[in-house]
């Protein structure tokens, strides 16, 4: 059983690690975007031989854009989640301290004046906990959503290999593009999975 401090520490670490993982995903998405630009140039030079490859480059580009958009959204939510985590931590500490005041000051003439404030803090703590839980759920949903482009990228990479095989002397260049999309998609998948495991470790 974790102590409250350990639990809180792991919450802060989980939220902070999302930012790190996501910044890696962002790098990967930008790499995919670059691969799309390369593929477009090669396909243009290859002309007829790479006709099937041209629409794929648009897909790759679209995929990269979608990923970057999702990462930005998730980053915003992760930052809101961090603020809520800090606020919940402060309320938890205040709640603990007010309980101590009520105990230490049980014989004080004006101890009753603290009851409404202690009650408010307890209510606010409940609200913060609720808010934290819904933000974590929302973030997990978004992380599931970002897995779709990662999976789609792998399918596109497979299609790219097939189309590359018909591109004659451009085969090697287009295969390299397909490889880089595949590798990027795999990295993205792994990073997002790590994000999700990290979130799942948050004990609320």
């Amino acid at each position, binding site marked *: 059983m974790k102590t409250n401090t350990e639990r809180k520490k792991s919450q802060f670490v989980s939220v902070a690690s999302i930012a790190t993982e996501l910044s890696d995903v962002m790098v990967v998405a930008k790499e995919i975007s670059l691969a799309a630009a390369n593929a477009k140039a090669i396909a243009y030079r290859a002309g007829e031989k790479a006709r099937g490859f041209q629409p794929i480059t648009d897909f790759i580009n679209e995929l990269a854009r979608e990923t970057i958009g999702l990462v930005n959204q998730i980053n915003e939510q992760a930052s809101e989640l961090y603020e809520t985590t800090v606020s919940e931590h*402060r*309320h938890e*500490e*205040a709640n603990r*301290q*007010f309980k*101590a*005041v009520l105990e*230490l*000051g049980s014989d*004080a*003439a*004006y*101890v*009753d*004046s*603290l009851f409404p*404030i202690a009650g408010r*803090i307890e209510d606010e703590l409940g609200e913060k906990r609720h808010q934290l839980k819904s933000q974590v759920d929302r973030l997990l949903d978004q992380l599931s959503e970002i897995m779709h482009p990662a999976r789609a990228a792998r399918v596109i990479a497979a299609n790219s290999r097939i189309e590359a095989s018909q591109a004659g002397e451009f085969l090697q260049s287009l295969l390299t593009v397909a490889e880089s999309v595949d590798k990027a998609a795999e990295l993205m998948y792994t990073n997002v999975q790590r994000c999700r495991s990290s979130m799942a470790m948050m004990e609320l």
Partner: protein
Amino acid sequence: MKRTTLFDSGYQWIVFGRDPNKAENLIDTNQYMIRTANRCLLLDPGGTELFAPMLAAALHYAPVEEITDLFASHQDPDIISSLGLWDQALPEAKLHAPAIWEGFLRHFGCNRIEYVPIEDAGGTIDLGSMELELIPAHYLHSSGNFNVYDPRSKILMSGDIGAAIESHDAPMFVEDFSEHVEKMRYFHQRWMPSNRAKNDWIKRVRKLDVEMLAPQHGRIFKGDDVERFLDWFEALSVGGAVQV
């Protein structure tokens, strides 16, 4: 926490300190309260660890809604790291603190309490039925630092000036000045950086009629011991960590 009334005539000055439950590795601090008919000011209310005993002690004198003002002489954690908790307890209160520390002190959490910045030249705190003077004490030891002077009770809350490192069961008042000197010497030589600032402060304080000099650590000086302290401090060379 020990509670001692310093002045009681129309309003009260109370000092809280010598907390027997305080952790060994935390420096002992004195917190002060001025209680008027319907308002209270807490001076240097202390660190986070002290919040619960401090508020519990204050509730012997006033309901929480009448604690309307806080004062922080400077930015140190033993002075005001409890701010985030007071911010929860006293959402309508004002914090009077040095203007230059505002952006720093807000790191302790100050969302509801109103931060009233004290400019370098000093100012006043108006508690309705009484007014307190804010005496500049910059660089003693903090670069933005104030004392609180009450002309009626003649109490000067002097922050770290006059401080001594003592055990939690030490008496509240200086009993033998010459014996007390050694408990103050290192603190002043090491924490106070500037002889020029020290002399400026002494000049200001000599113009005031001070009956009690009440520091944030250690014992309170009364009567002739106030003058003895000023003489001793004047003769002391500070900023001792830098060897020229």
